[in-house]
Protein backbone atom coordinates (compact mmCIF):
# COMPACT_ATOMS: atom_id res chain seq x y z
CA UNK A 1 0.00 0.00 0.00
CA UNK A 2 1.23 3.42 -0.94
CA UNK A 3 1.83 6.25 1.48
CA UNK A 4 -1.26 8.44 1.43
CA UNK A 5 -1.38 12.13 2.11
CA UNK A 6 -4.68 13.98 2.43
CA UNK A 7 -4.40 15.44 -1.08
CA UNK A 8 -3.91 12.01 -2.59
CA UNK A 9 -7.18 10.64 -1.29
CA UNK A 10 -9.38 9.92 -4.28
CA UNK A 11 -12.12 8.03 -2.49
CA UNK A 12 -12.79 7.84 1.20
CA UNK A 13 -15.62 5.69 2.49
CA UNK A 14 -16.80 6.06 6.06
CA UNK A 15 -19.13 3.55 7.71
CA UNK A 16 -21.17 2.75 4.59
CA UNK A 17 -24.39 0.83 5.09
CA UNK A 18 -26.84 -0.49 2.52
CA UNK A 19 -30.11 -2.20 3.30
CA UNK A 20 -32.54 -3.73 0.80
CA UNK A 21 -35.66 -3.90 2.96
CA UNK A 22 -34.85 -6.74 5.39
CA UNK A 23 -31.49 -7.55 3.81
CA UNK A 24 -28.48 -5.82 5.35
CA UNK A 25 -26.00 -6.01 2.46
CA UNK A 26 -23.28 -3.60 3.55
CA UNK A 27 -22.66 -3.42 7.29
CA UNK A 28 -20.36 -0.49 7.82
CA UNK A 29 -17.56 -0.31 5.28
CA UNK A 30 -14.70 2.16 5.67
CA UNK A 31 -11.66 2.47 3.48
CA UNK A 32 -9.46 4.99 1.67
CA UNK A 33 -8.39 4.72 -1.95
CA UNK A 34 -5.52 6.95 -3.03
CA UNK A 35 -4.59 8.37 -6.43
CA UNK A 36 -3.29 5.78 -8.91
CA UNK A 37 -4.10 2.97 -6.55
CA UNK A 38 -5.56 -0.23 -8.01
CA UNK A 39 -7.91 -1.89 -5.56
CA UNK A 40 -9.38 -5.33 -6.20
CA UNK A 41 -12.51 -6.36 -4.35
CA UNK A 42 -12.87 -10.09 -3.85
CA UNK A 43 -15.22 -12.27 -1.91
CA UNK A 44 -18.03 -14.80 -2.12
CA UNK A 45 -21.07 -14.01 -4.22
CA UNK A 46 -23.75 -12.26 -2.22
CA UNK A 47 -21.06 -10.71 -0.08
CA UNK A 48 -21.85 -7.18 -1.30
CA UNK A 49 -18.98 -6.58 -3.76
CA UNK A 50 -21.07 -5.19 -6.61
CA UNK A 51 -23.40 -3.35 -4.27
CA UNK A 52 -20.40 -1.66 -2.66
CA UNK A 53 -19.03 -0.57 -6.03
CA UNK A 54 -22.43 0.67 -7.20
CA UNK A 55 -22.91 2.63 -3.99
CA UNK A 56 -19.67 4.51 -4.62
CA UNK A 57 -21.21 6.44 -7.53
CA UNK A 58 -24.72 6.16 -6.10
CA UNK A 59 -26.10 3.95 -8.84
CA UNK A 60 -27.34 2.23 -5.71
CA UNK A 61 -28.46 4.67 -3.03
CA UNK A 62 -26.54 3.94 0.22
CA UNK A 63 -28.67 3.74 3.36
CA UNK A 64 -26.18 5.63 5.53
CA UNK A 65 -22.53 6.57 5.73
CA UNK A 66 -20.28 9.00 3.91
CA UNK A 67 -18.47 8.79 0.58
CA UNK A 68 -15.84 11.42 -0.19
CA UNK A 69 -14.83 11.68 -3.84
CA UNK A 70 -11.77 13.92 -4.17
CA UNK A 71 -12.59 15.34 -0.76
CA UNK A 72 -16.29 16.11 -1.34
CA UNK A 73 -18.93 14.19 0.56
CA UNK A 74 -21.30 13.05 -2.20
CA UNK A 75 -23.88 11.92 0.37
CA UNK A 76 -24.74 15.49 1.35
CA UNK A 77 -27.45 17.51 -0.40
CA UNK A 78 -26.44 20.12 -3.00
CA UNK A 79 -24.42 17.50 -4.85
CA UNK A 80 -25.03 17.15 -8.58
CA UNK A 81 -24.48 13.42 -8.81
CA UNK A 82 -24.24 13.66 -12.62
CA UNK A 83 -21.11 15.80 -12.23
CA UNK A 84 -19.67 13.29 -9.77
CA UNK A 85 -20.32 10.45 -12.21
CA UNK A 86 -18.46 12.18 -15.04
CA UNK A 87 -15.34 11.77 -12.87
CA UNK A 88 -15.94 8.04 -12.46
CA UNK A 89 -15.96 5.70 -15.43
CA UNK A 90 -17.81 2.45 -14.97
CA UNK A 91 -17.52 -0.85 -16.84
CA UNK A 92 -20.16 -3.53 -16.38
CA UNK A 93 -20.18 -7.29 -16.50
CA UNK A 94 -22.75 -7.30 -19.32
CA UNK A 95 -21.09 -4.43 -21.25
CA UNK A 96 -24.37 -2.47 -21.48
CA UNK A 97 -23.45 -0.86 -24.78
CA UNK A 98 -26.35 1.06 -26.36
CA UNK A 99 -27.58 -1.34 -29.05
CA UNK A 100 -29.16 1.37 -31.24
CA UNK A 101 -25.85 3.23 -31.63
CA UNK A 102 -22.63 2.32 -33.42
CA UNK A 103 -19.38 1.89 -31.48
CA UNK A 104 -18.25 5.45 -32.17
CA UNK A 105 -21.72 6.84 -31.36
CA UNK A 106 -21.66 4.95 -28.07
CA UNK A 107 -18.40 6.67 -27.23
CA UNK A 108 -19.48 10.13 -28.42
CA UNK A 109 -22.85 10.24 -26.67
CA UNK A 110 -21.78 11.40 -23.22
CA UNK A 111 -19.01 13.82 -24.29
CA UNK A 112 -21.40 15.53 -26.70
CA UNK A 113 -24.48 15.75 -24.51
CA UNK A 114 -22.93 16.05 -21.05
CA UNK A 115 -19.74 17.96 -21.79
CA UNK A 116 -21.17 19.81 -24.80
CA UNK A 117 -18.24 18.96 -27.05
CA UNK A 118 -18.75 19.37 -30.81
CA UNK A 119 -19.50 16.31 -32.91
CA UNK A 120 -16.21 16.63 -34.81
CA UNK A 121 -14.06 16.88 -31.69
CA UNK A 122 -15.94 14.06 -29.99
CA UNK A 123 -15.43 11.90 -33.09
CA UNK A 124 -11.69 12.65 -33.13
CA UNK A 125 -11.33 11.79 -29.47
CA UNK A 126 -13.50 8.72 -29.88
CA UNK A 127 -11.38 7.45 -32.76
CA UNK A 128 -8.25 7.94 -30.66
CA UNK A 129 -9.83 5.90 -27.88
CA UNK A 130 -10.89 3.17 -30.31
CA UNK A 131 -7.29 3.02 -31.49
CA UNK A 132 -6.17 2.71 -27.90
CA UNK A 133 -8.40 -0.34 -27.36
CA UNK A 134 -7.40 -1.73 -30.77
CA UNK A 135 -10.75 -1.37 -32.55
CA UNK A 136 -10.19 1.38 -35.13
CA UNK A 137 -11.89 -0.69 -37.82
CA UNK A 138 -15.03 -1.27 -35.78
CA UNK A 139 -16.11 2.36 -35.35
CA UNK A 140 -19.24 1.94 -37.46
CA UNK A 141 -20.19 -1.49 -36.17
CA UNK A 142 -23.24 -1.95 -33.98
CA UNK A 143 -22.75 -3.79 -30.68
CA UNK A 144 -24.54 -6.93 -31.94
CA UNK A 145 -21.92 -7.18 -34.71
CA UNK A 146 -19.06 -7.27 -32.18
CA UNK A 147 -17.74 -10.15 -30.11
CA UNK A 148 -18.01 -9.99 -26.33
CA UNK A 149 -14.39 -8.97 -25.93
CA UNK A 150 -14.77 -6.23 -28.54
CA UNK A 151 -17.95 -4.97 -26.90
CA UNK A 152 -16.25 -4.75 -23.54
CA UNK A 153 -13.32 -2.84 -25.06
CA UNK A 154 -15.75 -0.38 -26.65
CA UNK A 155 -17.42 -0.05 -23.23
CA UNK A 156 -14.05 0.81 -21.70
CA UNK A 157 -13.41 3.38 -24.44
CA UNK A 158 -16.87 4.83 -23.80
CA UNK A 159 -16.09 5.23 -20.10
CA UNK A 160 -12.67 6.76 -20.86
CA UNK A 161 -14.24 9.29 -23.25
CA UNK A 162 -15.41 11.32 -20.27
CA UNK A 163 -11.76 11.52 -19.13
CA UNK A 164 -12.57 10.19 -15.67
CA UNK A 165 -10.23 10.35 -12.68
CA UNK A 166 -11.38 6.97 -11.42
CA UNK A 167 -12.47 3.75 -13.15
CA UNK A 168 -14.80 1.14 -11.68
CA UNK A 169 -14.85 -2.36 -13.15
CA UNK A 170 -17.73 -4.63 -12.09
CA UNK A 171 -16.64 -8.16 -13.06
CA UNK A 172 -15.51 -6.98 -16.51
CA UNK A 173 -14.43 -10.42 -17.73
CA UNK A 174 -17.03 -12.68 -16.12
CA UNK A 175 -19.35 -12.71 -19.14
CA UNK A 176 -16.57 -13.34 -21.66
CA UNK A 177 -15.44 -16.49 -23.40
CA UNK A 178 -11.99 -17.50 -22.09
CA UNK A 179 -10.16 -16.57 -25.31
CA UNK A 180 -11.48 -13.00 -25.11
CA UNK A 181 -10.50 -12.29 -21.52
CA UNK A 182 -6.91 -11.55 -22.47
CA UNK A 183 -7.69 -8.69 -24.85
CA UNK A 184 -9.79 -6.91 -22.22
CA UNK A 185 -7.18 -7.42 -19.50
CA UNK A 186 -4.53 -6.00 -21.88
CA UNK A 187 -6.49 -2.75 -22.17
CA UNK A 188 -6.90 -2.61 -18.40
CA UNK A 189 -3.18 -3.26 -17.96
CA UNK A 190 -2.28 -0.19 -20.06
CA UNK A 191 -4.62 1.88 -17.91
CA UNK A 192 -2.82 0.67 -14.80
CA UNK A 193 0.49 1.73 -16.33
CA UNK A 194 -0.94 5.16 -17.12
CA UNK A 195 -1.66 5.60 -13.42
CA UNK A 196 -5.45 5.39 -13.45
CA UNK A 197 -7.12 4.98 -10.08
CA UNK A 198 -9.05 1.73 -10.40
CA UNK A 199 -11.52 -0.21 -8.30
CA UNK A 200 -12.10 -3.69 -9.63
CA UNK A 201 -14.51 -6.43 -8.68
CA UNK A 202 -13.03 -9.56 -10.22
CA UNK A 203 -11.71 -13.02 -9.64
CA UNK A 204 -8.98 -12.84 -12.28
CA UNK A 205 -6.27 -13.99 -9.87
CA UNK A 206 -3.39 -13.55 -12.32
CA UNK A 207 -4.33 -10.00 -13.18
CA UNK A 208 -4.97 -9.06 -9.56
CA UNK A 209 -1.66 -10.52 -8.41
CA UNK A 210 0.13 -8.57 -11.12
CA UNK A 211 -1.72 -5.24 -11.15
CA UNK A 212 -3.50 -4.66 -7.85
CA UNK A 213 -1.95 -2.70 -5.01
CA UNK A 214 -4.46 -3.95 -2.50
CA UNK A 215 -7.18 -6.54 -2.12
CA UNK A 216 -10.33 -5.87 -0.14
CA UNK A 217 -11.85 -9.16 0.90
CA UNK A 218 -15.56 -8.55 1.33
CA UNK A 219 -17.83 -11.13 2.93
CA UNK A 220 -21.22 -10.81 4.61
CA UNK A 221 -21.20 -7.05 4.16
CA UNK A 222 -17.94 -6.25 5.91
CA UNK A 223 -14.27 -6.01 4.90
CA UNK A 224 -13.01 -9.23 6.42
CA UNK A 225 -9.41 -8.67 5.47
CA UNK A 226 -7.33 -6.33 3.32
CA UNK A 227 -3.76 -6.16 2.17
CA UNK A 228 -1.44 -6.49 -0.82
CA UNK A 229 -2.12 -9.48 -3.10
CA UNK A 230 1.03 -11.42 -2.10
CA UNK A 231 0.04 -11.30 1.53
CA UNK A 232 -3.62 -12.19 0.94
CA UNK A 233 -2.85 -15.00 -1.48
CA UNK A 234 0.06 -16.43 0.48
CA UNK A 235 -0.83 -16.11 4.11
CA UNK A 236 -4.31 -14.73 4.66
CA UNK A 237 -5.14 -14.60 8.33
CA UNK A 238 -8.91 -14.79 8.34
CA UNK A 239 -10.51 -18.24 8.03
CA UNK A 240 -13.25 -16.81 5.78
CA UNK A 241 -10.61 -15.63 3.27
CA UNK A 242 -8.68 -18.87 3.47
CA UNK A 243 -11.81 -20.91 2.81
CA UNK A 244 -12.68 -18.74 -0.23
CA UNK A 245 -9.19 -18.84 -1.72
CA UNK A 246 -8.97 -22.59 -1.24
CA UNK A 247 -12.21 -22.96 -3.19
CA UNK A 248 -11.19 -20.86 -6.21
CA UNK A 249 -7.46 -21.62 -6.46
Amino acid sequence: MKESSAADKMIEVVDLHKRFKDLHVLKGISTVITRSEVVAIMGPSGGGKSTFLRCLNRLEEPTSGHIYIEGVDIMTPYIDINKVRTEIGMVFQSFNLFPHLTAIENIKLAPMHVRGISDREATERGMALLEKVGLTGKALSYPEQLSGGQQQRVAIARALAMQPQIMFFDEPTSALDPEMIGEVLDVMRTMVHEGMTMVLVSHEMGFIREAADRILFLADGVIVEEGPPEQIFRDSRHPRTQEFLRAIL
Partner: protein
Amino acid sequence: MQSQPGPPDITHKFLRTHPAWFRVVRRPIFLAVTFVVMVAFAMFVLPQPESAVPAWLYSSISLFLLLILAWSGNILADRDKPEVLKLAVSFALIAVLAWLFYRYSGAQWDKLTEFFLNFPKLKGNWWILRNGLGVTLMLAVISAAGSILVGLAVAILRTYNSPTLNLFLKAYIDILRSIPMIVIMVLLFFALPFAGISMGSIMSTVVALSLGYGAYTAESFRAGIESVHSGQTEAARSLGLSRWQTLRRVILPQAIPVVIPPLTGNLVSMLKDTAVASLVAAPELLKRARELYTAKTNPTPLVAAALIYLAVLIPLVRVVNMLENRRKKRAP
Protein backbone atom coordinates in the same frame (compact mmCIF):
# COMPACT_ATOMS: atom_id res chain seq x y z
CA MET B 1 -51.85 -49.40 -55.06
CA GLN B 2 -51.20 -47.27 -52.01
CA SER B 3 -52.77 -43.88 -51.38
CA GLN B 4 -49.70 -42.61 -49.54
CA PRO B 5 -46.82 -41.33 -51.68
CA GLY B 6 -43.40 -42.86 -51.32
CA PRO B 7 -41.86 -46.21 -52.22
CA PRO B 8 -44.30 -48.98 -51.32
CA ASP B 9 -41.73 -51.50 -50.16
CA ILE B 10 -40.69 -49.61 -47.02
CA THR B 11 -41.07 -51.76 -43.96
CA HIS B 12 -39.96 -50.50 -40.61
CA LYS B 13 -41.54 -50.32 -37.20
CA PHE B 14 -42.49 -46.65 -37.59
CA LEU B 15 -44.43 -47.18 -40.84
CA ARG B 16 -47.70 -45.22 -40.98
CA THR B 17 -50.55 -47.69 -41.52
CA HIS B 18 -54.27 -47.13 -41.99
CA PRO B 19 -57.16 -49.58 -42.08
CA ALA B 20 -58.07 -50.73 -45.58
CA TRP B 21 -61.37 -48.77 -45.76
CA PHE B 22 -59.51 -45.59 -44.84
CA ARG B 23 -57.15 -45.97 -47.75
CA VAL B 24 -60.02 -46.64 -50.13
CA VAL B 25 -61.93 -43.58 -48.95
CA ARG B 26 -59.02 -41.27 -49.61
CA ARG B 27 -58.33 -42.39 -53.15
CA PRO B 28 -58.97 -39.75 -55.82
CA ILE B 29 -61.15 -42.12 -57.82
CA PHE B 30 -63.43 -42.69 -54.80
CA LEU B 31 -63.65 -38.93 -54.20
CA ALA B 32 -64.49 -38.31 -57.87
CA VAL B 33 -67.24 -40.92 -57.88
CA THR B 34 -68.81 -39.63 -54.67
CA PHE B 35 -68.62 -36.10 -56.06
CA VAL B 36 -70.70 -37.18 -59.06
CA VAL B 37 -73.13 -38.93 -56.72
CA MET B 38 -73.56 -35.70 -54.71
CA VAL B 39 -74.13 -33.57 -57.80
CA ALA B 40 -76.75 -36.07 -58.95
CA PHE B 41 -78.32 -35.99 -55.50
CA ALA B 42 -78.52 -32.19 -55.61
CA MET B 43 -79.99 -32.17 -59.11
CA PHE B 44 -82.50 -35.03 -58.97
CA VAL B 45 -83.20 -35.91 -55.36
CA LEU B 46 -83.38 -32.56 -53.53
CA PRO B 47 -87.04 -31.49 -53.77
CA GLN B 48 -88.52 -28.13 -54.75
CA PRO B 49 -88.88 -25.91 -51.64
CA GLU B 50 -92.65 -25.38 -51.95
CA SER B 51 -93.94 -28.67 -53.28
CA ALA B 52 -92.31 -31.23 -50.99
CA VAL B 53 -93.72 -32.99 -47.96
CA PRO B 54 -91.93 -31.38 -44.96
CA ALA B 55 -90.66 -34.69 -43.61
CA TRP B 56 -89.11 -35.61 -46.95
CA LEU B 57 -87.74 -32.05 -47.38
CA TYR B 58 -85.97 -32.06 -44.00
CA SER B 59 -84.60 -35.59 -44.23
CA SER B 60 -83.27 -35.16 -47.77
CA ILE B 61 -81.58 -31.85 -46.93
CA SER B 62 -80.06 -33.39 -43.79
CA LEU B 63 -78.74 -36.32 -45.77
CA PHE B 64 -77.29 -33.98 -48.39
CA LEU B 65 -75.62 -31.83 -45.68
CA LEU B 66 -74.16 -34.95 -44.12
CA LEU B 67 -72.80 -36.06 -47.48
CA ILE B 68 -71.10 -32.80 -48.44
CA LEU B 69 -69.66 -32.27 -44.94
CA ALA B 70 -68.23 -35.78 -44.83
CA TRP B 71 -66.86 -35.47 -48.37
CA SER B 72 -65.14 -32.11 -47.86
CA GLY B 73 -64.03 -33.02 -44.34
CA ASN B 74 -62.38 -36.12 -45.77
CA ILE B 75 -60.30 -33.92 -48.08
CA LEU B 76 -59.60 -31.09 -45.61
CA ALA B 77 -58.36 -33.49 -42.92
CA ASP B 78 -55.93 -35.25 -45.27
CA ARG B 79 -52.39 -33.98 -44.77
CA ASP B 80 -51.25 -35.38 -48.11
CA LYS B 81 -53.78 -33.46 -50.25
CA PRO B 82 -52.44 -30.29 -51.87
CA GLU B 83 -53.34 -26.98 -50.23
CA VAL B 84 -54.83 -25.62 -53.50
CA LEU B 85 -57.38 -28.43 -53.56
CA LYS B 86 -58.32 -27.73 -49.93
CA LEU B 87 -58.80 -24.05 -50.71
CA ALA B 88 -61.04 -24.86 -53.67
CA VAL B 89 -63.06 -27.38 -51.64
CA SER B 90 -63.53 -24.82 -48.82
CA PHE B 91 -64.88 -22.18 -51.18
CA ALA B 92 -67.07 -24.72 -52.95
CA LEU B 93 -68.47 -25.85 -49.59
CA ILE B 94 -69.27 -22.27 -48.59
CA ALA B 95 -70.94 -21.69 -51.98
CA VAL B 96 -73.06 -24.84 -51.69
CA LEU B 97 -74.12 -23.99 -48.12
CA ALA B 98 -75.05 -20.46 -49.24
CA TRP B 99 -77.04 -21.89 -52.15
CA LEU B 100 -78.89 -24.29 -49.80
CA PHE B 101 -79.69 -21.39 -47.46
CA TYR B 102 -80.81 -19.19 -50.34
CA ARG B 103 -83.03 -21.90 -51.75
CA TYR B 104 -84.66 -23.33 -48.63
CA SER B 105 -84.57 -20.62 -45.92
CA GLY B 106 -87.81 -18.97 -47.00
CA ALA B 107 -86.29 -15.50 -46.59
CA GLN B 108 -87.68 -12.59 -48.59
CA TRP B 109 -84.65 -11.99 -50.74
CA ASP B 110 -86.16 -9.36 -52.99
CA LYS B 111 -87.20 -7.23 -50.00
CA LEU B 112 -83.81 -7.67 -48.37
CA THR B 113 -82.09 -6.37 -51.50
CA GLU B 114 -84.53 -3.52 -51.85
CA PHE B 115 -83.99 -2.34 -48.28
CA PHE B 116 -80.32 -2.93 -47.68
CA LEU B 117 -78.63 -3.05 -51.06
CA ASN B 118 -80.59 -0.37 -52.88
CA PHE B 119 -77.52 1.49 -54.09
CA PRO B 120 -79.29 3.32 -56.96
CA LYS B 121 -81.13 5.27 -54.25
CA LEU B 122 -77.78 6.70 -53.13
CA LYS B 123 -77.16 8.23 -56.53
CA GLY B 124 -76.10 11.87 -56.26
CA ASN B 125 -75.64 11.53 -52.46
CA TRP B 126 -72.24 9.85 -52.32
CA TRP B 127 -70.56 13.23 -51.68
CA ILE B 128 -72.38 13.41 -48.33
CA LEU B 129 -70.77 10.15 -47.25
CA ARG B 130 -67.44 11.33 -48.66
CA ASN B 131 -67.59 14.50 -46.55
CA GLY B 132 -68.48 12.32 -43.58
CA LEU B 133 -65.41 10.17 -44.24
CA GLY B 134 -63.30 13.35 -44.38
CA VAL B 135 -64.53 14.39 -40.93
CA THR B 136 -63.97 10.86 -39.60
CA LEU B 137 -60.37 10.83 -40.84
CA MET B 138 -59.73 14.32 -39.46
CA LEU B 139 -61.10 13.30 -36.03
CA ALA B 140 -58.93 10.16 -36.13
CA VAL B 141 -55.71 11.98 -37.07
CA ILE B 142 -56.09 14.78 -34.50
CA SER B 143 -57.12 12.35 -31.74
CA ALA B 144 -54.25 10.04 -32.66
CA ALA B 145 -51.76 12.88 -32.21
CA GLY B 146 -53.50 13.89 -28.98
CA SER B 147 -53.54 10.38 -27.53
CA ILE B 148 -49.87 9.82 -28.38
CA LEU B 149 -48.89 13.07 -26.66
CA VAL B 150 -50.99 12.26 -23.59
CA GLY B 151 -49.76 8.65 -23.50
CA LEU B 152 -46.09 9.54 -23.89
CA ALA B 153 -46.32 12.25 -21.23
CA VAL B 154 -48.02 9.89 -18.76
CA ALA B 155 -45.54 7.08 -19.49
CA ILE B 156 -42.58 9.42 -18.99
CA LEU B 157 -44.02 10.77 -15.74
CA ARG B 158 -44.46 7.20 -14.54
CA THR B 159 -40.74 6.50 -14.96
CA TYR B 160 -40.10 8.92 -12.08
CA ASN B 161 -41.56 6.25 -9.78
CA SER B 162 -42.94 8.90 -7.46
CA PRO B 163 -45.61 7.20 -5.33
CA THR B 164 -47.79 10.32 -5.15
CA LEU B 165 -47.61 11.03 -8.85
CA ASN B 166 -48.18 7.37 -9.72
CA LEU B 167 -51.33 7.34 -7.61
CA PHE B 168 -52.88 9.99 -9.84
CA LEU B 169 -51.51 8.60 -13.09
CA LYS B 170 -52.76 5.11 -12.28
CA ALA B 171 -56.13 6.53 -11.31
CA TYR B 172 -56.32 8.31 -14.68
CA ILE B 173 -55.34 5.17 -16.61
CA ASP B 174 -57.64 2.81 -14.71
CA ILE B 175 -60.66 5.12 -14.75
CA LEU B 176 -60.42 6.05 -18.42
CA ARG B 177 -59.86 2.45 -19.45
CA SER B 178 -62.88 1.32 -17.44
CA ILE B 179 -65.42 3.77 -18.89
CA PRO B 180 -66.84 2.97 -22.32
CA MET B 181 -65.80 5.53 -24.90
CA ILE B 182 -69.43 6.35 -25.62
CA VAL B 183 -69.99 7.32 -21.98
CA ILE B 184 -66.90 9.54 -21.82
CA MET B 185 -68.04 11.34 -24.94
CA VAL B 186 -71.62 11.84 -23.77
CA LEU B 187 -70.44 13.12 -20.39
CA LEU B 188 -68.05 15.60 -22.02
CA PHE B 189 -70.67 16.83 -24.45
CA PHE B 190 -73.85 16.85 -22.39
CA ALA B 191 -72.71 17.12 -18.77
CA LEU B 192 -69.78 19.52 -18.89
CA PRO B 193 -71.83 22.46 -20.18
CA PHE B 194 -73.65 22.43 -16.84
CA ALA B 195 -70.24 22.85 -15.19
CA GLY B 196 -69.67 25.92 -17.32
CA ILE B 197 -67.43 24.24 -19.89
CA SER B 198 -69.01 23.70 -23.25
CA MET B 199 -67.18 22.21 -26.17
CA GLY B 200 -68.43 21.69 -29.67
CA SER B 201 -69.16 18.18 -30.89
CA ILE B 202 -65.85 17.95 -32.76
CA MET B 203 -63.88 19.29 -29.82
CA SER B 204 -65.49 16.98 -27.27
CA THR B 205 -64.91 14.00 -29.56
CA VAL B 206 -61.24 14.86 -29.95
CA VAL B 207 -60.82 15.38 -26.20
CA ALA B 208 -62.67 12.18 -25.33
CA LEU B 209 -60.70 10.06 -27.81
CA SER B 210 -57.37 11.65 -26.84
CA LEU B 211 -57.94 11.09 -23.13
CA GLY B 212 -59.52 7.66 -23.54
CA TYR B 213 -56.94 6.28 -25.92
CA GLY B 214 -54.17 8.24 -24.16
CA ALA B 215 -54.68 5.82 -21.26
CA TYR B 216 -54.12 2.80 -23.51
CA THR B 217 -51.21 4.48 -25.28
CA ALA B 218 -49.60 5.28 -21.92
CA GLU B 219 -49.68 1.60 -21.02
CA SER B 220 -48.13 0.64 -24.37
CA PHE B 221 -45.34 3.18 -23.95
CA ARG B 222 -44.73 2.03 -20.39
CA ALA B 223 -44.41 -1.58 -21.55
CA GLY B 224 -41.95 -0.42 -24.23
CA ILE B 225 -39.89 1.57 -21.75
CA GLU B 226 -39.84 -1.34 -19.32
CA SER B 227 -38.68 -3.69 -22.09
CA VAL B 228 -35.37 -1.80 -22.24
CA HIS B 229 -32.92 -3.54 -19.93
CA SER B 230 -32.09 -1.70 -16.70
CA GLY B 231 -28.37 -2.00 -17.53
CA GLN B 232 -28.95 0.60 -20.24
CA THR B 233 -30.09 3.16 -17.69
CA GLU B 234 -27.21 2.28 -15.39
CA ALA B 235 -24.64 2.66 -18.16
CA ALA B 236 -26.08 6.00 -19.26
CA ARG B 237 -26.37 7.39 -15.74
CA SER B 238 -22.85 6.24 -14.84
CA LEU B 239 -21.57 8.31 -17.77
CA GLY B 240 -23.12 11.39 -16.19
CA LEU B 241 -26.20 11.64 -18.41
CA SER B 242 -29.16 13.14 -16.59
CA ARG B 243 -32.42 11.27 -16.14
CA TRP B 244 -34.00 13.19 -19.03
CA GLN B 245 -30.98 12.76 -21.33
CA THR B 246 -30.98 9.04 -20.55
CA LEU B 247 -34.65 8.80 -21.47
CA ARG B 248 -34.30 10.82 -24.65
CA ARG B 249 -30.98 9.46 -25.97
CA VAL B 250 -30.95 5.88 -24.72
CA ILE B 251 -34.32 4.56 -23.53
CA LEU B 252 -36.88 6.03 -25.96
CA PRO B 253 -34.88 5.24 -29.13
CA GLN B 254 -34.99 1.60 -28.03
CA ALA B 255 -38.55 1.64 -26.68
CA ILE B 256 -40.35 3.31 -29.57
CA PRO B 257 -39.70 0.58 -32.20
CA VAL B 258 -41.11 -1.92 -29.69
CA VAL B 259 -44.19 0.21 -29.16
CA ILE B 260 -45.12 0.99 -32.76
CA PRO B 261 -47.10 -2.21 -33.54
CA PRO B 262 -49.37 -2.09 -30.46
CA LEU B 263 -49.71 1.67 -30.95
CA THR B 264 -50.87 1.27 -34.54
CA GLY B 265 -53.35 -1.32 -33.28
CA ASN B 266 -54.71 1.25 -30.81
CA LEU B 267 -55.06 3.78 -33.59
CA VAL B 268 -57.12 1.36 -35.69
CA SER B 269 -59.51 0.86 -32.76
CA MET B 270 -59.66 4.61 -32.36
CA LEU B 271 -60.55 5.15 -36.00
CA LYS B 272 -63.48 2.79 -35.47
CA ASP B 273 -64.48 4.55 -32.26
CA THR B 274 -64.85 7.87 -34.08
CA ALA B 275 -68.26 6.44 -35.04
CA VAL B 276 -69.33 7.12 -31.48
CA ALA B 277 -69.11 10.83 -32.30
CA SER B 278 -72.34 10.48 -34.28
CA LEU B 279 -74.04 10.44 -30.88
CA VAL B 280 -72.93 13.98 -30.15
CA ALA B 281 -73.85 15.04 -33.67
CA ALA B 282 -70.36 15.43 -35.08
CA PRO B 283 -70.91 15.28 -38.85
CA GLU B 284 -68.75 12.20 -39.40
CA LEU B 285 -69.37 9.17 -41.58
CA LEU B 286 -71.90 7.29 -39.43
CA LYS B 287 -73.83 10.46 -38.60
CA ARG B 288 -74.04 11.34 -42.30
CA ALA B 289 -75.15 7.81 -43.15
CA ARG B 290 -77.87 7.99 -40.51
CA GLU B 291 -79.08 11.33 -41.90
CA LEU B 292 -79.33 9.78 -45.34
CA TYR B 293 -81.12 6.77 -43.85
CA THR B 294 -83.75 9.09 -42.40
CA ALA B 295 -84.06 11.18 -45.54
CA LYS B 296 -84.39 8.20 -47.89
CA THR B 297 -86.24 5.99 -45.38
CA ASN B 298 -83.92 3.22 -46.51
CA PRO B 299 -81.00 1.67 -44.58
CA THR B 300 -78.76 1.22 -47.61
CA PRO B 301 -76.58 4.24 -46.56
CA LEU B 302 -75.68 2.32 -43.40
CA VAL B 303 -74.50 -0.61 -45.49
CA ALA B 304 -72.55 1.84 -47.65
CA ALA B 305 -70.96 3.32 -44.51
CA ALA B 306 -69.98 -0.17 -43.37
CA LEU B 307 -68.34 -0.81 -46.75
CA ILE B 308 -66.45 2.50 -46.53
CA TYR B 309 -65.19 1.70 -43.00
CA LEU B 310 -64.12 -1.68 -44.33
CA ALA B 311 -62.28 -0.17 -47.30
CA VAL B 312 -60.35 2.20 -45.03
CA LEU B 313 -59.65 -0.19 -42.16
CA ILE B 314 -58.72 -3.42 -43.95
CA PRO B 315 -55.50 -1.90 -45.39
CA LEU B 316 -54.69 -0.37 -41.99
CA VAL B 317 -55.20 -3.69 -40.22
CA ARG B 318 -52.92 -5.32 -42.77
CA VAL B 319 -50.26 -2.68 -42.08
CA VAL B 320 -50.48 -3.39 -38.33
CA ASN B 321 -50.09 -7.09 -39.04
CA MET B 322 -47.08 -6.43 -41.24
CA LEU B 323 -45.42 -4.28 -38.57
CA GLU B 324 -45.96 -6.98 -35.98
CA ASN B 325 -44.53 -9.68 -38.20
CA ARG B 326 -41.50 -7.58 -39.04
CA ARG B 327 -40.93 -6.97 -35.36
CA LYS B 328 -41.19 -10.69 -34.58
CA LYS B 329 -38.64 -11.49 -37.26
CA ARG B 330 -36.18 -8.93 -35.94
CA ALA B 331 -36.50 -10.00 -32.30
CA PRO B 332 -33.72 -12.38 -31.22
